[in-house]
């Protein structure tokens, strides 16, 4: 993928499919490294399936033989000399603490580092598509931090749903402004 924000969208959709009610996307940046962490409290994966997720021929989809979201993110990270991991606890074994954490670390100074791209659109698309989920987004840079927690928004909005067009436009504007201030 040409932008990491598309990889993030792809991985976060796995959390949606796993019926998570909270998904946290954390981006942690230093001068040298860029770390993506996507954690959820969805149904999780059993150990034998977890072992195969980085294999491009494994997937939960029935429409095609291969699922490429995780293999592509792993490749993108390893191409920069970074690292990748997926940790998961399935609800059958961990009824109170199930979920999945996908983590990718990139070396920002590698020529093969893919730019983050339009992360604001990724976040707003996820919120609009699954307004029932609590989305927590934190992007920490040496220059500052961008933060969004849909539970905090809900507390202010009351009965107005998160996928209301005006709310989505507001969220987009809020994130864009936060990024503009960080530069």
């Amino acid at each position, binding site marked *: 993928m040409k932008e990491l924000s598309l990889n993030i969208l792809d991985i976060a959709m796995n959390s949606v499919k796993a019926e998570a009610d909270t998904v946290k996307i954390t981006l942690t940046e230093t001068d040298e490294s860029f770390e993506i962490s996507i954690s959820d409290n969805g149904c999780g994966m059993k150990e034998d399936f977890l072992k195969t997720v980085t294999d491009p021929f494994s997937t939960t989809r029935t429409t095609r033989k291969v699922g490429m979201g995780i*293999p*592509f993110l792993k*490749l993108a990270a390893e191409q920069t000399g970074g690292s990748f991991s997926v940790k998961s606890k399935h609800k059958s074994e961990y009824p109170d603490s199930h979920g999945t954490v996908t983590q990718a670390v990139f070396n920002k100074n590698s020529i093969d580092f893919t730019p983050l791209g339009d992360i604001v659109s990724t976040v707003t698309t996820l919120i609009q598509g699954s307004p029932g989920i609590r989305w927590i987004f934190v992007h920490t840079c040496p220059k500052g931090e961008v933060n969004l927690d849909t539970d905090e928004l809900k507390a202010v909005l009351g009965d107005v749903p998160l996928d209301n067009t005006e709310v989505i436009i507001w969220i987009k504007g809020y994130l864009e402004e936060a990024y503009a201030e960080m530069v």
Partner: protein
Amino acid sequence: MTVNELIEKCGFNAVSLPEPEREINGCYIGDLLSWVMGRAEADNVWITIMSNINIIAVATLADVCCIILAEGVTVDDEIVKLAGEKGVNILLSDKKTYETAVAVYEAI
């Protein structure tokens, strides 16, 4: 033109050839796998320099007739084995990507 005939004409080194009689219908060149997945057409020759395991999945999904690894790129035995199991032809070319593409163009 089949993959077998292409090998004969251009002298590519076939490291995996489970389907030698596949017909060739054009060529696609690209290294960004997600991009190739959406754009390479069925029965295309796919020229790339990427040699990790994901190329086998992309070749399967796009249903290309063979992968040509250009620029002298080599491929691990385990990937060759998987290609055989999944019915993916892999050829090696010492030429640069452009020259490899020209050779394919002239052959087909």
